[in-house]
């Protein structure tokens, strides 16, 4: 049974790397054309009716937006966990700092209310989250290993507690409403019901989905640029063997701090988008459980691989919505799969970590040599 599953898994990986090879073999103009077509497809996705794929119970556009925002989170967390190998269990803290920055500076209800529009609040939110990342990283990144996981876990909880108990500032669980959003009205001709209404208002998630998609694409592009540079190599080397990396000239602390700051900035950006879309922010939005799901999507998908973590984000955030469509009624009682979401994730995590600890879509290396069959004995 186990060996059969393993064989199946290897066949799947072989198939995937076959696709990868074929993709890389395509001439560049073709790759660009396919890439563009795919992007257009993503933008059009809310209006395309793919049977079964579309969610019924929840508005499909909102589901797509939700997935997109968490893909953005995954891109950021991938820099921290996947590339630099820093186990950050409190990433939700950065998400919250970003969200609250926009809420506090933007909402007229807040004590810090400014007249700044959303577009000004977002850069402020990113700057503040980056700062919080550096402040958290400065003392902690000098220490190695498990310690960091504990400290970041504490950071996430700390931010949540401040949000919950800091009534004067955050209004606790009652939250802050009237969070601003980007300007713009729907022009005539898109949808007669929307014409003249706010593009980012409550009437539809389409504007938000498109905006988030643009940001995801830009951030992925930026993350790739950094990954395929001296900085990305330094991160990998630190992840593999920090002492050896330092002796080879890698400024480990500096690049770890960069990873933290970049991750924080992306987390903050996601939070800022989230706050604008929800229009309302309260301490209940930043549960520890969400932080764990953040890590789960990176680890399940394939830490260190952008395609992998994207898949992870899709699985973790799309599936629960899809599962809502399959309500079974037993003895007149509706059983909702969503309630078993965490149970299912727990199981999936155990299975995946057993069979493929590198995640579903691991980072792949083309190897010119088959693995050495039997490694020679290493003398001590």
């Amino acid at each position, binding site marked *: 049974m186990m060996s059969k599953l393993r064989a199946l898994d290897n066949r799947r990986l072989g198939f995937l790397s076959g696709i990868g090879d074929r993709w890389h073999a395509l001439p560049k103009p073709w790759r660009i054309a396919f890439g563009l077509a795919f992007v257009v497809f993503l933008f059009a996705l809310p209006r395309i009716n793919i049977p079964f794929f579309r969610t019924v119970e929840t508005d499909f556009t909102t589901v797509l937006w939700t997935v997109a925002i968490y893909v953005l989170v995954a891109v950021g967390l991938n820099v921290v966990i996947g590339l630099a190998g820093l186990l950050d269990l409190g990433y939700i803290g950065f998400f919250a700092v970003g969200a609250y920055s926009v809420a506090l500076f933007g909402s007229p209800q807040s004590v810090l209310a400014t007249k700044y529009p959303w577009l000004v609040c977002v850069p402020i939110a990113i700057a503040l989250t980056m700062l919080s990342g550096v402040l958290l990283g400065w003392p902690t990144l000098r220490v190695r290993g498990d310690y960091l996981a504990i400290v970041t876990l504490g950071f996430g909880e700390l931010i949540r507690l401040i949000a919950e108990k800091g009534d004067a500032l955050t209004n606790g669980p009652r939250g802050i409403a009237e969070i601003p959003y980007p300007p713009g009205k729907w022009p005539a001709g898109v949808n007669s019901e929307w014409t003249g209404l706010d593009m980012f208002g409550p009437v539809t998630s389409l504007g938000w989905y498109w905006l988030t998609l643009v940001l995801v694409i830009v951030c992925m592009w*930026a993350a790739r*640029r*950094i990954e395929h*540079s*001296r*900085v*990305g*190599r*330094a991160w*990998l*080397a630190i992840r*593999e*063997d920090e*002492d*050896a*990396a*330092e*002796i*080879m*000239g*890698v*400024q*480990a602390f500096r690049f770890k701090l*960069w990873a933290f700051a*970049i991750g924080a900035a992306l987390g903050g950006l996601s939070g800022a988008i989230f706050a604008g879309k929800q229009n309302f922010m309260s301490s209940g939005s930043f549960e520890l459980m969400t932080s764990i799901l953040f890590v789960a999507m990176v680890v399940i998908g394939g830490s260190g691989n952008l395609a992998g973590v994207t898949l992870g984000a899709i699985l973790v955030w799309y599936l629960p919505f899809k599962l809502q469509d399959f309500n079974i009624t037993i003895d007149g009682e509706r059983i909702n799969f969503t309630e078993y979401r965490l149970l299912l994730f727990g199981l999936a995590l155990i299975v995946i970590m057993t069979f493929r600890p590198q995640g579903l879509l691991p980072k792949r*290396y*083309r*190897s*010119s*040599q*088959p*693995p*050495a069959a039997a*490694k*020679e*004995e*290493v*003398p*001590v």
Partner: protein
Amino acid sequence: MTMSDTLLKVDNVTLRFGGVTALDGVDFEVRRGEILGLIGPNGAGKTTCFNVMTGVFKPTAGEVTFDGERVSGRAKYAITRLGIARTFQNIRLFPEMTALENVLVGTDARHKTSVVGALFRLPRVKAEAHTLPESGWRRTFALTFGVSRHIAEERAARAKALDLLSFVGIEGHADAQAKNLSYGDQRRLEIARALATEPKLLCLDEPAAGFNPAEKARLLELIRKIRDLGLTVLLIEHDMRLVMGVTDRLVVLEFGKKIAEGSPAEVRENPKVIAAYLGVPQDAA
């Protein structure tokens, strides 16, 4: 002796781990352009000596100077940039990275590109005409606006890394993950990675451990080639034949103390060294 003859000076270095004195007032120097052997029985403190030189441990007393600069107290990466590179007794490559990437990390020690430079492809530097395509708009563009420092560094680094891989004889495995290389190739890759940092002094910690005689002969050849490049080599090695054949001078450690120093011939005749290696108590020797 003038300053310039001495490349590295280990000056009365003592290092204690709790109760253990791993190095006890060790004093020696490495001269420019020589191959110096550091030998001694197991646990003598040879690797610890490398660790002090490369900033892994700070000496309890004494200091190390390199090329006129104080080493002790500097960060590890800063010492690498001064020009000391090393390999490890128990191989420490970046196992998941390819052989080429391992060497690229070494070349990065001399690079400047950071996050902003990689992201925005700034600053621009003058393009070197021979690295550009023969014709076409890319060439025109690069000649007019220059290339980003990131691209210039990457191109040069790749070329250099491939050169180094063939220098140590594993060019065929550039894209193989380090963990999939054979044991001997991993040792060679470590040397290539160390050379990529552009050192003045290369420290090799038992590079021939586990090698058969043919591999040892190749390694000997490689060490000589490295010296011919103008580098200074400090070599820890247990194989006496190899050590005697390749080194100009030897320093012998035992129980953290230097017990002898001199040419291979002198050291071979030294009664303390014979005693240390044969395990005869010193007063009996």
